[in-house]
């Protein structure tokens, strides 16, 4: 995966939308208890949502209404990335929030203070 992690780990985090980090200790990742807890979390967090891959191979969870071509955008100050859909009459329609594994902790904001971002 682009984040250099094992696929199974990325998948576990994604279907539970990041909760293993907070709710499940990683020192028992192979135990039956871990998988039971993961299942319990995933049935809650993944319910009525769908997996997606973005143009760079990042794995994420999107609302059921997502479509291919929806744009992943990180609004300044926001907790989570959002999906926006270009509209024929201009502008975008908000298609909901999404989980993208690997960019949820401000990784893309790293260079923001260093003027490496293009502004226009």
């Amino acid at each position, binding site marked *: 995966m682009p984040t250099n992690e094992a696929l199974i780990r990325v998948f576990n985090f994604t279907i539970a939308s990041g909760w293993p980090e907070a709710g499940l200790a990683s020192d028992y990742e192979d135990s039956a208890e871990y998988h039971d807890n993961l299942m319990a979390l995933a*049935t809650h*967090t993944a319910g*009525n949502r769908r997996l*997606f891959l973005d143009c760079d191979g990042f794995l994420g969870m999107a609302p059921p209404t997502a479509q291919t071509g929806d744009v992943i955008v990180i609004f300044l100050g926001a*907790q989570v990335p959002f999906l926006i859909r270009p509209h024929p009459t201009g502008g*975008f329609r908000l298609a909901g929030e999404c989980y993208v594994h690997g*960019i*949820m902790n401000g990784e893309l904001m790293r260079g*923001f203070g260093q003027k490496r971002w293009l502004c226009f």
Partner: protein
Amino acid sequence: MDITKSIELNGEETTKDAYTRMARALLASETDLILLSMVQESNLENELPSWVPDWSVPYRWHQLGVPSGIIAPLFRAGQDKKGEAMRPPRTSNPNRPDQLILRGFVAGDIRWLGEVFVTGLTANYYQWQNHPSHRNSDSRAPPPTLPESWGEKDAQHLRLNEHDSFPKWPRNNMAARGTGRSYPIHANQRSLDSSFQLHDRLWLA
């Protein structure tokens, strides 16, 4: 912040106008755009601006962003390293109250979508787990053991051919299995340190 004044209902407004005005007032009172996280399905699909939650419809899926005054947020995708919420610059067009203009980075777009997970287990999982038929651990079958080589063989399916564009997965990669040279997936992909375009005026309607 006292927002009760600005979300007071006015009997002459339409539902659309009232929802939009309330959404705008709530957005102005927070720094982390939690209101946008509350947008799910809508009964007023063609009437409400897409960024306004329809409060009359119950949630159908898990909400990622949480009000930080109540629960500690899990994520800070658009916040800086220290986790400080940066007040997002917003402008509005007085002639178009249904438009919301935000600043943000475009991180990519969706190329491949899976099926919708249909789960009815959420409420009943713990009941199921504690059901008498599952409580006796002797009656539960041991987890299947996999041969040690399984992991390596399976990983072959997931490697991309050098000339494959991502994502062609899994069908094309299965076909390409055993042909060509495999390379680490991250090598040719976006680095987390590369720069992205900051759009000053992404407007939502």
